[in-house]
């Protein structure tokens, strides 16, 4: 299939997914379940990664900013801005593309090859709306929270690194993370999080829905979901940065 065929099919799938649900109460319950699976289930990995990313970023900043002309608090400021601008929204989304994307594609792919999706359709249930919409809505709701958590924990990771290694004094680090704060950077990070949430869940759902065959094809769908999501995330990272951060 050509890329245009895939784009057309993806568009049709999303249009079906956001059609009026059969029973709003049932779909809402599914949204809550998905929020738990996507959001709560991702917090441990996000927490570990964020703390280590923040700590390593501070150490690298300290190593690179060893020039006496650069003020000491710069390391804190750079760690904070790196976390807000790139690491929390983009790197965490790339990690979640692996965790959440492969899970969605695997789950829907298995449902497809075992005729569970056909069973929904024959019952008169809109399978796209029942299965995809709650995942997308849940991700749109929880991704901003995950990104905010990642920003806080990344900055905290830097604090821990400064405390344990002493490359920057704790006072200077704390001063740095408060210095010249630009609130729009957080808005920018949250806008990116929303786009990436949509990309991860919709691309993975599409890959799951077009699965046919058996176990091997389900595995291939999971791999394709992760690879395509990551590429599209990086592409949109570039586009959104150009649109939102350049004057």
């Amino acid at each position, binding site marked *: 299939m050509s890329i245009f065929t895939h784009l057309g099919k993806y568009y049709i799938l999303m249009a079906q997914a956001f059609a009026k649900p*059969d*029973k709003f109460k*049932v779909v809402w319950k599914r949204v809550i379940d998905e929020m738990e699976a996507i959001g709560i289930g991702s917090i441990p990995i996000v927490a570990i990664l964020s703390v280590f990313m923040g700590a390593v970023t501070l150490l690298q900043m300290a190593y690179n900013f060893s020039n006496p002309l650069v003020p000491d608090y710069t390391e804190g400021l750079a760690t904070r801005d790196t976390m807000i601008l790139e690491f929390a929204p983009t790197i965490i989304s790339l990690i979640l593309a692996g965790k959440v994307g492969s899970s969605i594609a695997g789950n829907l792919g*298995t*449902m497809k090859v*075992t*005729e*569970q999706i*056909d*069973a929904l*359709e*024959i*019952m*008169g*249930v*809109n399978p796209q709306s029942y299965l995809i919409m709650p995942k997308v809505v849940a991700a749109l709701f929880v991704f901003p929270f995950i990104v905010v958590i990642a920003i806080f924990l990344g900055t905290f990771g830097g604090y821990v690194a400064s405390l344990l290694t002493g490359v920057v004094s704790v006072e200077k680090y704390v001063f740095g993370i408060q210095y010249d704060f630009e609130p729009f950077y957080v808005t920018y990070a949250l806008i990116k999080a929303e786009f990436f949430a949509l990309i991860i869940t919709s691309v993975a759902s599409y890959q799951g829905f077009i699965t046919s065959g058996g176990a091997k094809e389900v595995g291939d769908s999971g791999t394709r979901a992760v690879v395509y999501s990551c590429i599209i995330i990086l592409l949109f990272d570039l586009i959104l940065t150009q649109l939102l951060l350049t004057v």
Partner: protein
Amino acid sequence: MITVENISKSFETKDVLKNINLDLKRGEVNMIIGKSGAGKSVLLKCLVGLFDVDKGRILYDDRPFSEMGYQKKKEVRKEVGMLFQGSALFDSKTVLENVMFPLTIFSDKSPEEIKERALFCLRRVNIEEHADHLFPAEISGGMQKRVAIARAIALQPRYLFCDEPNSGLDPQTSIVIDNLIKEITVELDITTIVISHDMNSVMEISDTISFIHNGQKWWEGSRDDIMTTDNQEVVDFVYASNFMKTLRENFNKG
């Protein structure tokens, strides 16, 4: 009753179904048999609307199902129950939740009434109480089929489709499933269509038999007719085993 009028279906250059006509009667088990690759499953998927036909019409009690739009088809589908070859139970839901699912989506009953109806359907297919909270992966293939039948009849369908209901089951369990399909057909007075290659099932429960060969309806008749037919393709298919050959000889001797 389901009427199939001259339907054809192709995939790329391959003609899978060619000008098929069928009358699938209410209150009867309408069996569709044929060799692997003959087009039975494609025919079933066309009947339930999973595939669109290229030519011809499918009428559900005179309603032109194959010509309906998505929303109208969806309404008709609420009257359809289907038993899939692999059961197609939702593996993230328990046995009870699987049967409650169509009721939760489509009925206006209270949660208590929904549960009561689901339990009634489970008891109807002889699922013991302790199995209600098990997941599909935790029960046997025969039980999965019975749960799938319970789910299919939960909304009291007018049409029941069964795709190879006995595949992967031992002979004793197969008979249980066959009898259940026959009983439900008579009890609910519904149109039942069964796709099978299991000759035991054909001889046990079929009222009418349609033989599909190379994408065409090759032969049609009753259980008695199949014992006396001289249609070579039907004879080759049905009487492939020595047991069936002996059965036919004995039947014809009277």
